[in-house]
């Protein structure tokens, strides 16, 4: 690890100011991606601005058909929250599948989506559950927020404050984990809303995406059989040691089908 300045922010405003004033500042929340990267000397931020204990980033609340979760909430808290378990069990399930117990007790929702790892689970939840991302500067839809591989719409000094998930009629998340990292090789969130179904895929491509063909098929018949024949194209999907693009494409179909089955 290279040397850096550690600064603990007392408020979001202070965090923003510290971030603006740093040469190459990084926000530290759970640190589950940032710290290993720094330990491997692959990142050398000048300043770490710790927002891990800010009360402004905490909170889980259900109001009507909106589930609001603070950006600083840890995966383990989301997984075990009784409010989330009853309002949106698919989301609690997803949080419980992230990493391992250590990661889940440190890593946060805001940290995960701000990093936008193409194999992270939360992006599928945000897009699949039609979430609105609230930042210090604005509110934007999940689809606007996730731009590309490790890339979001966040500006240099913008901080994710919380996420509003729309509570669906039914939903389920199915994940095929990478055997080594346990990130998603393919993860699919399927949700049914009065306005229609949503199918969000993580792990397979450079960034989370909606599988529109499946959404259309499910709109007329929300059943596993309706998407059985749909083939995800492997074109532009990720390919690595653990899974080729062809295999990922195939798994998108299988995971989507199983998610529909589970949700039904």
């Amino acid at each position, binding site marked *: 690890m290279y040397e850096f300045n550690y600064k603990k922010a007392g408020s979001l405003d202070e965090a923003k100011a510290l971030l603006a004033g740093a040469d190459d500042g990084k926000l530290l929340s759970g640190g589950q991606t940032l710290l290993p990267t720094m330990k491997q000397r692959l990142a050398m931020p000048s300043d770490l601005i710790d927002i891990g204990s800010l009360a402004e980033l905490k909170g889980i609340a259900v109001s009507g058909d909106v589930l609001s979760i603070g950006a600083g909430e840890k995966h383990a808290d989301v997984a075990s929250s009784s409010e989330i378990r009853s309002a949106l069990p698919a989301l609690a399930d997803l949080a419980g599948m992230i990493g391992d117990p250590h990661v889940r007790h440190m890593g946060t929702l805001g940290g995960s989506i701000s990093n936008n790892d193409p194999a992270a689970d939360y992006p599928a939840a945000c897009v699949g559950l039609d979430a609105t991302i609230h930042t210090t500067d604005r509110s934007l839809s999940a689809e606007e927020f996730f731009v590309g591989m490790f890339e979001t719409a966040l500006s240099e000094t913008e901080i994710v404050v919380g996420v509003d998930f729309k509570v669906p009629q039914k939903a389920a998340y199915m994940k095929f984990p990478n*055997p080594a990292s346990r990130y998603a090789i393919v993860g699919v969130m399927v949700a049914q809303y009065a306005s229609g179904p949503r199918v969000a895929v993580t792990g397979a491509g450079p960034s989370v995406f909606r599988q529109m063909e499946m959404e259309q098929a499910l709109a007329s018949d929300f059943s596993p059989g309706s998407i059985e024949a749909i083939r995800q194209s492997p074109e532009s999907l990720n390919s690595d040691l653990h899974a080729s693009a062809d*295999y990922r494409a195939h798994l998108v179909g299988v995971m989507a089908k199983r998610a529909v089955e589970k949700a039904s």
Partner: protein
Amino acid sequence: MISKPNFTGIGAPIQRKEDKRFITGQGQYTDDIARPGQVYAAFVRSPVAHARIKEIDASAALELEGVLAVLTGAQLKEDGIAGLICGWTVQSKDGSDMIAGEHPALAVDKVRYVGDHVAVVIGTTNHIARQGAELVGVDYEELDPVVDLESVRGANPVHEEAANNVCFEWELGEKEPTDDAFGKADHVTKLDITNNRLIPNAMEPRAAIGEYNQAEDHYTLYTTSQNPHVARLVISAFVGLAPEHKLRVIAPDVGGGFGSKIFIYAEEVVCLWAAKKVGKPVKWTGERSEAFLADAHGRDHISSAELALDKDGKFLGLRVKTIANLGAYLSTFASAVPTYLYGTLLSGQYQIPAIYVEVDGVYTNTAPVDAYRGAGRPEATYLLERIVEKAARELSIDPADLRKRNFIDQFPYQTPVIMNYDVGDYHASLEEGLERIGYSDFETRKAQSEAAGKKRGIGFSTYIEACGIAPSAAVGSLGAGVGLWESAEVRVNPTGNVEVLTGCHSHGQGHETTFAQLVSHRFGIPIESVEIVHGDTDKVQFGMGTYGSRSGAVGMSAITVACDKVITKGKKIAAHLMEVPADSVDFEDGLFLGKDSNKSLAFGEIALAAYTAHGFPTDEIEPGLKESCFYDPSNFTFPAGCHICEVEIDPETGELDIAAFVAVDDFGTVINPMIVEGQVHGGLVQGIGQAILEGCTYDKESGQLVTGSFMDYTMPRADDVPSFDVGMTVTECPSNPVGMKGCGEAGAIGATPAVINAIINALGVDSIEMPATPERIWRAANGL
């Protein structure tokens, strides 16, 4: 004795004595040791697989405050420090010695793999040393690397000495009789097979502290070694750093080795040398990333095999041609692993009248490859158990039945590949395995799986291995540079407690418990009265260390003989004190008993008498009670067993579930069943890991390590493996006084082919590559 309450002797499953310090954080590992004034070493490692070093510019690093020195291979050479050696000379078919390329501790002129040691930076803190290492500028002239095993010949030479990148072309067995056997065969089964490369990853990464005392001209090395005396011998006699009596090697608590800490590594030599250069103790603690790059890797063979059978399924002959990857440099025992630890095991548990094996050991621009849990024996077992199962498939013979038709059942049995099996009962372990797995109901379970859309398969592995390494004369005749006896010293203190000094080294095996159980049993004293001392060349007389499941069969045999010598002397003392003839004293359960008298003396009383020595006839009995033994085994030992794996596969995703795993092993006498079962579990996990999870991958073009972290290298985790069903059958080993065979590697040897055979059986295919990842299984299941 076993029925006694609180029994702690041979056969008692007592908890491990050493665990209290380990689980309360009081273990003393190399990195826990801080020497006064110590400074830190960081290695500049090659970022490229193959290149000439044109220039090393240390100026920027030397300007960094706190950097004490930047040292290179050229300086090492100037100081007359020689390179590392391979301790086993293998000969090629034509009688010529293997070609051992230079192995300098720091690269001279050339780097040969990603992670190779280019220079070392010594800094006052670890942080400064690392900063300094990044500031060392190295100008590389890159060369095309050799990575692919099948195209080493004609590629750029890794070592100029070995023009075709061939280190040796070795053979074993007789070619003509084997060819004749194939001429008479009714059926020939052929198999091309790859044994995937593995990265050991012990829990504790390697570390070293070198210390130099100028006044005494004496060095001390603290290191993560499985065999400190061998390290001292090599560093003294071959590297030439210091004479043996001026070098102390301490291997304190060591957190796992699996073979990877047998070898003498560049970092150890460099820390010692640098300590003298800078006049301060120099410490290096490897990072996990460095362990991935530069610990010796394991396995990595490609082979073609043929098995000749007659019309009844009797084996007639086996022909094997293997290319074994040795990596960029010959590590300490690299040449022995794919030859004498591999070819000699190709007879397995079977009567195969003729065997001929050829092994080409080749250099590549990858990390050195050497012994890893099982070392050669897993490679032999995997090949043999795969081809036997394939033959059964081709001949439509039940795989268990084909094995039974060919089992060796008369002992001793001389194989055509050197080994002389002393004892075993292969039918017994197979029968128990079949019973435990419920073989007769397999078809029912298979049908249930099929009804649920799953594919179920069962796979066997009836393995043998050679442990108790090894009779010195035997290994000497095969090219070993050392004898492979083991030593023990048993010191009885005046107050009756006992210190046992052993040349073995415990780095997870639990010697402090099992060795103490043996001594407590032998002397009839409480286990708390026995202390095991190991891992320090200044304390322990000498020793060959721990690997090859040798510490029980060889190390404990040495202790047994030394204990018996103590008892013999104790009897003399007792006879003197009881005033009875010397041959009329028995020793039983801690008491010296005068025959035909009611006199008895306790072990402690004799111990005290030995040191007071009052009234001793000192011309007949020396004072003191301390005996030692250098025990040379008369034969290898042959643990064997039967592993059966049952898998269920989801053909839609390729997901694999190990539905059941049975291991029935014959380890001879068992000292502590709990520890043995733990060893089996650990071995099985590593064997299963090789089959379905672990695979070291280098990019074939660039020679970069693709699986350089746990994000890509799949280490087995608890949820990857089932709850194991472990059983034991026992045939006592006749070649050592304890009857032990060794249990440390069996799991890793037997499990791998059982898993792959089960997958192949489930899918109805002929082969699948390891690791059998979900994608590979999915492709095989769907004919893609």
